[in-house]
């Protein structure tokens, strides 16, 4: 993706939102970028890593989001503009440092880009990062389109340096992952950095203690620094009052004012078009959403008495606007507000033009039917009759399918109602039938082992079910290590199973500290998970999950042990990894004469339960078949067939 850096100033490029964000950072002269993979944010760091050498920047995939923010902050302290990227809940992980960083302030421009996932399209939460801006009191920008995504990130660095504090630029899935036209700015033009002109990074720390630019970078004395931080926010508000990122379109005296931000401004625009209501409704699109510029907001609130606030996830903008409206009461009068709090806008899930159009039509008294009822009915019928059920499933050849097969079987055979505490990764899919519905708790990164550590101490209260946790290799480094150490130290009785597929599989195979490769694809020392576990004082066994019998026996044995922490590493590279992709280890085939199909004795174990997409059911012949195009050649199904009807032949 060299056009990220080579695209000429003034040229128009079709950029994905995440590319636009990366380009904005490059145009701003950003030097250090760090992040942790997470949909929908991952492409920002990936794109920057690809051009890092050419651009002369440092890019890393950090062990977790908190570390990423710390790495980026160090660059800012040393006079280099830095960028930090994560998905919405990543900010939760980074939040402790975030609070203190907001207190100490930054030096060279530092921008945090959280990419939120309204509707949880690729998440197990519908978290909201915007409230962190209010919580730790740093400015928040929300781009409304692809051009703004680039331009706002670029300007965010300037703002950060104006106020000497972190600036947040929040994206969402539909911006990060959609594409649109972006007109390029100049990459070379920005050289407003001290460090760059000097051509060296330097951390000055021997100045006056209260001098943020030359003294120690700390958040104490707290009340003094906090006071300074508030002064900075006032300065930000001044910029926001006249910011070109806040726009108004519509009549001078609209019947209704819609206040919105982010991609919701695009949806609203479309809804107004659908309803042909542009001459009745004013649209205030805010790009600077915290702190709100009061004069700008007051000016628009005065235009009408009815206000609709359109936004996704929490009523963040709504509450800010209402707070201002209360303060401005004597000047602007009493207003009627519509939004999430009165259920005009749904309180959960993603928005779309239809939802907004139906909200608008209710307020405006327009008779509209976003989707005709007959269409909905017919579409439903067709889907029911003709669309095959497609479950979310593990890829063909995925080691996790094999791992959960064995773990689930062992827990069922053990017969003491043991359970698995799940964690975040591809293997979270094991909450679904694809993973035999094996996960019984699922929360945040690293939490499986933490929760298991708690369960494992409940023996004294009579909990005698075997406790198992799973975690991926990347998750191990991210945040499962403290949980493991906690469990070992407290002699919690559990089996931790590390599903080591040698990469951050779910987000696109980014490297992590356990691999001998960094974000740029260069050699890096690998941290050995097994050695870390051993050093923590837990027993550790390593198994190949493709060996179903051995894995099951090993798990059964570990379940019997009720004396502290046992760790089992199930090691097998992800089927989509560059090493494996497209290469089959085995040529698989089904002997139709042996396969008993749906008869007593098997009843389609392979296609009904194991359900690898590489296996299909021949409805006519009533036997299983290998789909040679899809089969990854892992050979595991040969071991699950009770009649040895599935054969594997090593590919030469």
């Amino acid at each position, binding site marked *: 993706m060299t056009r990220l850096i080579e695209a000429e100033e003034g040229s128009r490029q079709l950029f994905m939102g995440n590319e636009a964000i990366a380009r904005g950072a490059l145009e701003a002269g950003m030097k250090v970028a760090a992040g942790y993979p997470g949909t929908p944010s991952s492409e920002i760091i990936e794109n920057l890593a690809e051009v890092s050498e050419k651009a002369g920047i440092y890019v890393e995939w950090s062990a977790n989001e908190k570390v990423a923010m710390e790495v980026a902050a160090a660059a800012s302290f040393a006079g280099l503009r830095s960028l930090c990227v994560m998905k919405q809940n990543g900010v939760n992980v980074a939040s402790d440092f975030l609070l203190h960083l907001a207190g100490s302030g930054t030096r060279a421009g530092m921008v945090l880009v959280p990419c939120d996932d309204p509707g949880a399209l690729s998440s197990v939460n519908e978290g909201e990062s915007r409230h962190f801006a209010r919580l730790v009191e740093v400015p928040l920008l929300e781009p409304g389109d692809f051009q703004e995504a680039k331009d706002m990130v670029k300007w965010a660095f300037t703002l950060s340096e104006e106020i000497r504090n972190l600036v947040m630029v929040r994206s969402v899935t539909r911006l990060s992952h959609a594409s649109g036209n972006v007109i390029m700015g100049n990459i070379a033009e920005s050289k407003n950095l001290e460090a760059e002109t000097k051509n060296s990074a330097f951390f000055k720390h021997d100045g006056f203690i209260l001098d943020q630019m030359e003294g120690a970078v700390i958040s104490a004395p707290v009340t003094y620094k906090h006071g300074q931080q508030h002064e900075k926010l006032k300065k930000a508000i001044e910029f926001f009052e006249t910011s070109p990122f806040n726009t108004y379109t519509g009549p001078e005296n609209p019947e209704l004012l819609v206040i919105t931000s982010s991609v919701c401004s695009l949806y609203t625009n479309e809804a107004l078009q659908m309803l042909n209501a542009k001459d009745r409704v004013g649209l205030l699109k805010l790009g600077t959403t915290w702190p709100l510029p009061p004069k700008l907001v007051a000016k628009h609130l005065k235009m009408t008495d009815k206000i609709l606030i359109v936004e996704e996830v929490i009523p963040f903008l709504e509450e800010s606007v209402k707070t201002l409206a209360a303060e401005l009461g004597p000047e602007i009068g009493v207003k009627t507000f519509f939004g999430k709090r009165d259920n005009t806008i749904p309180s959960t899930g993603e928005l779309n033009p239809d939802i907004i159009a139906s909200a608008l039509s209710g307020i405006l008294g327009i008779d509209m039917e976003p989707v005709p009822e007959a269409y909905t009915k017919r579409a439903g019928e067709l889907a029911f009759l003709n669309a095959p059920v497609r479950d979310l499933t593990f890829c063909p050849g995925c080691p996790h399918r094999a791992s959960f097969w064995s773990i689930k079987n062992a827990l069922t055979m*053990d017969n003491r109602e043991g359970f698995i505490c799940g964690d975040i990764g591809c293997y979270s899919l094991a909450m679904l039938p694809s993973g035999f519905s094996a996960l019984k708790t699922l929360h945040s990164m690293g939490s499986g082992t933490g929760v298991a550590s708690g369960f494992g101490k409940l023996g004294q209260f009579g909990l005698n079910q075997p406790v198992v946790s799973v975690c991926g290799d990347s998750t191990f480094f991210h945040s499962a290590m403290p949980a493991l150490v906690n469990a070992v130290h407290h002699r919690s009785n559990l089996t931790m199973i590390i599903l080591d597929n040698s990469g951050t599989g779910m987000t696109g195979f980014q490297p992590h500290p356990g691999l001998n490769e960094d974000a740029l694809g260069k050699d890096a020392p690998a941290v050995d998970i097994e050695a870390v576990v051993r050093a923590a004082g837990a027993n550790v066994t390593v198994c190949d999950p493709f060996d179903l019998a051995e894995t099951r026996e090993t798990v059964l044995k570990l379940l019997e042990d009720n004396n502290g922490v046992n760790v089992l590493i199930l090691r097998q590279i992800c089927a989509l990894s560059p090493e494996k992709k497209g290469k089959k280890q085995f040529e698989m085939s089904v002997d139709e004469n042996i396969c008993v199909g749906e008869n007593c*004795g098997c009843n389609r174990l392979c296609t009904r339960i194991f359900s690898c997409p590489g296996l299909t059911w021949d409805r006519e012949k009533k036997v299983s078949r290998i789909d040679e195009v899809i089969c990854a050649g892992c050979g595991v199904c040969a071991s699950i067939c009770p009649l040895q009807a599935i054969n594997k032949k090593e590919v030469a």
Partner: protein
Amino acid sequence: MQVFGSKELLEDVINRDLCIGCGACVGRCPYFKSYKGKTAMLFECDLSEGRCFAHCPKVEVDLDSLSTTFFQKAYDGNPLGSYMEILGAKAGDKIAKAEFQNGGSVSALIALALETGLIDAAVLTDREGIIPTPRLVTNAQEVFECASSKYMAAPTLSALNNGIEQGFERMGVVATPCQATAVAKIRTNPVKRANFIDPVNLVIGLFCTWALDTRQMLSFLSDQPDMADDIRSADIRSMDIPPPPEEVMVIETGTKKTKIPLKEIRPMICESCQFCPDMTAEWSDISVGAFEGKPGWNTLVIRTKKGKNLVEEAVEKGYLQVEKIPEESIKHLAGAALNKKRNSFIKNVEKGLVNTGEKEGRSAIRLSDDVLKKITAQKENAV
């Protein structure tokens, strides 16, 4: 009998805690597995009819139908089942001294049956540590390795299923009453398979009053301070309950003999055993148990012509020695058997598990109402 599938088996047997873990459903398909005395169903199977249900000794056991098949008469509720003769017996001179429970008659009969080709393999119960394990054997030496009682529910019949897979067609099975019931069901081909071959040619039943839950027993013994080491090293030599009045179980390990009061053992009896009406393994050719009052000897209940022939041949060839058994002993045995039968039928009736109509659903056991009435109305030790 009407055959259902694994869903009904789960409802009727496993979820009601009636599964004794006999292994009849283990090994015919990939869904049922046995581990530490318990049978688990790994995944759901949606077939409406299955051998798992058809072969289970804890559901839809039609006593009249079994009796007609094996003894050519309706089930009459006799406490000792149908039999031709009862004898005292012990292993003969031809049999080397091994670690037998009592007289070694079972080992002797199976060894002979293997040697004469009456059976082509034997389905026995071995032991790994304290845990009883199924074993399919084809020679006498292996038979003696499996000698002595296990006192715990064992998935023995998974070895029978394994033998069927391997192509054995005349197997001998040494079975507890529940296992013998399952074997009887298997032999009637309840799923009506074409080309069915009866895989069993000899059933030697074992007297049984109850079995212990393996996992509970394992955990109990591991908690005994003086046994923990032996349990860990899995060095169990034998288990025995000497005749009253001692009221103990004696467990012999590599280092010592430990006596455990029966009152501590009894709470570990499988729930399922309370519902079992059979003490002497009635669906067998010969049933074998202790000869009360005569240590080192067995009681033999000979039920079929095939059983009688085998015993005669064993005596002839020096594998077995027999003697008459006093009427008093038979009466005593029948009294104990009746107690078990009556108490269990009362329990079964209370739970609604006998002769249920279409509305109430499936039964555990079916027999004629008259016989049921006869059994439950009898007084203790009425024989």
